[in-house]
């Protein structure tokens, strides 16, 4: 016990899990938000609103249980052998999958708001020039909504970064620098949650864990400030 601590593996694990979650959830949310605001009939929105609300309200521990029951075996039995590896399924990919579902309602809600603030005249003008509806979306809406989309994604990112229990339950918690998505990881929030019990028995361990919490806080606040500011600007300009 030299009183030295390193957080490199934990930060890398956190990045892996978060980026995978965003890569999975981002496109789905974007496509679905366009569908719901541009194409879908009102009845679809009336169905999807409660769905989004309930999904947002499900506690993270339930997502964790679902991850253990459904995602972990799926990754272990199907995804692992696909790459010729035999793994338990407790891996960064499982964490990313569970997280992706958890952040979908947050990102989707913001994206729907963003697309709603874009004035309808823009669409109408472009349609009158002979463009198809999809061309309007591609060339006008997406460009206009770009800052809003970026901020929705970064809010989702920060939400994923701080998520604790659900990830902790499926990610494996092995202290090693992960080099692939099928390996177990050990993200920062899981580190704090797993070790608070021993916090007072090892000298200066409490400071190290609090530093982990500080890193988490600073990153999340930074992302939040940037994205909230972007949203604020979008809302002011329209």
């Amino acid at each position, binding site marked *: 016990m030299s009183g030295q601590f390193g957080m490199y593996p934990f930060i890398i694990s956190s990045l892996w899990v978060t980026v995978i979650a965003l890569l999975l959830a981002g496109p789905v949310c974007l496509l*679905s938000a366009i569908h719901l605001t541009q194409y879908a009939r009102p009845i679809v929105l009336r169905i999807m609103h409660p769905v989004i609300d309930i999904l947002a309200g499900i506690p993270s521990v339930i997502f964790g249980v679902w991850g253990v029951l459904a995602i972990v075996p799926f990754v272990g039995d199907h995804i692992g052998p696909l790459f010729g590896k035999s793994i338990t399924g407790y891996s960064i990919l499982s964490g990313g999958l569970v997280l992706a579902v958890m952040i979908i309602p947050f990102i989707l809600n913001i994206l729907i708001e963003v697309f709603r603030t874009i004035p309808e005249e823009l669409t109408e003008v472009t349609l009158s020039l002979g463009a198809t509806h999809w061309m309007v979306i591609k060339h006008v809406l997406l460009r206009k909504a770009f800052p809003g989309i970026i901020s929705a994604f970064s809010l989702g990112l920060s939400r994923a970064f701080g998520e604790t229990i659900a990830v902790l339950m499926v990610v494996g918690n092995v202290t090693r620098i992960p080099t692939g998505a099928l390996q177990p990881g050990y993200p920062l929030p899981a580190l704090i949650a797993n070790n608070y019990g021993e916090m007072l028995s090892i000298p200066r361990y409490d400071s190290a864990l609090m530093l982990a919490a500080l890193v988490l806080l600073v990153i999340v606040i930074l992302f939040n400030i940037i994205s909230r500011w972007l949203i604020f600007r979008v809302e002011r300009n329209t």
Partner: protein
Amino acid sequence: MKLGVRKAEELFFRVVMFLATTVILLALLMIIFTILHKGLAAVSWKMISQLPKGGFYFGKEGGILNAILGSIYLASGASILAILFGLPVALYINIHLHKNKRLVTAIRFMLDVMWGIPSIVYGAFGFTVMLFFGMRSSLLAGMLTVTLFIIPIMIRSIDEVMKTVPKGLLESTLSLGSTKSETAYRVYFKQCISGVTTALLLSFGRAIGDAASVLFTTGYTDNLPTSLSEPTATLPLAIFFQLSSPIAEVKERAYASAVILTVIILIISLVSRVSARKYLKHKIK
């Protein structure tokens, strides 16, 4: 580009977008189905009505009443504290400060950022403050931490509803000679009562479902708490601890506990929907 290509591109993306929406719907159905499918078999009246008995964690007799009641105590306490702070703040922002746009924007901005802070950070913060005051993990410490964590949710949800109240209402009540506080509690509060109820239920749901903030602060025990200074069991932690057990019976109980928590959350969501509709009738348009 030829028209045919354009049409084909549009059709392709319409299909993909429709699939994306379906995926989201299916994800929710799959979660609820998986939890119910695995857990319903193990749910029994004993599970809900009894405390853990000797050998409970090795698969023997008992239930998780301690965790259910503990969670309800904790979430109710925290929600009540949060609305005691949250409602006046939301009213103050919308009525007393409504001319000071910059300040209001700054406050909303800060609250949004606070909403984004992960609950584990609140937990770590609560734990450090507890250590500073020499407190043990207890119901009170957990309640205070969860209150901190749900106050931004509470204020911002009430605030969002109050934003939609027409400004004419404020002006006309003031012109009739009422004070700002009378306007706030007699008019705005009544006008927004459905929003306040929804905010309360939303915060309650957050409070009852969060594990990371109570992990440090509330502790865990097999007994029912008899005072605020005792540690308390909570449902999310009950699920978490039982699931990490290697014994099959205990795991089964974790699934059953997950069913109980899911049902509580679904009921809360249903009640908030119904109440939002019910109070809408009394609203001045």
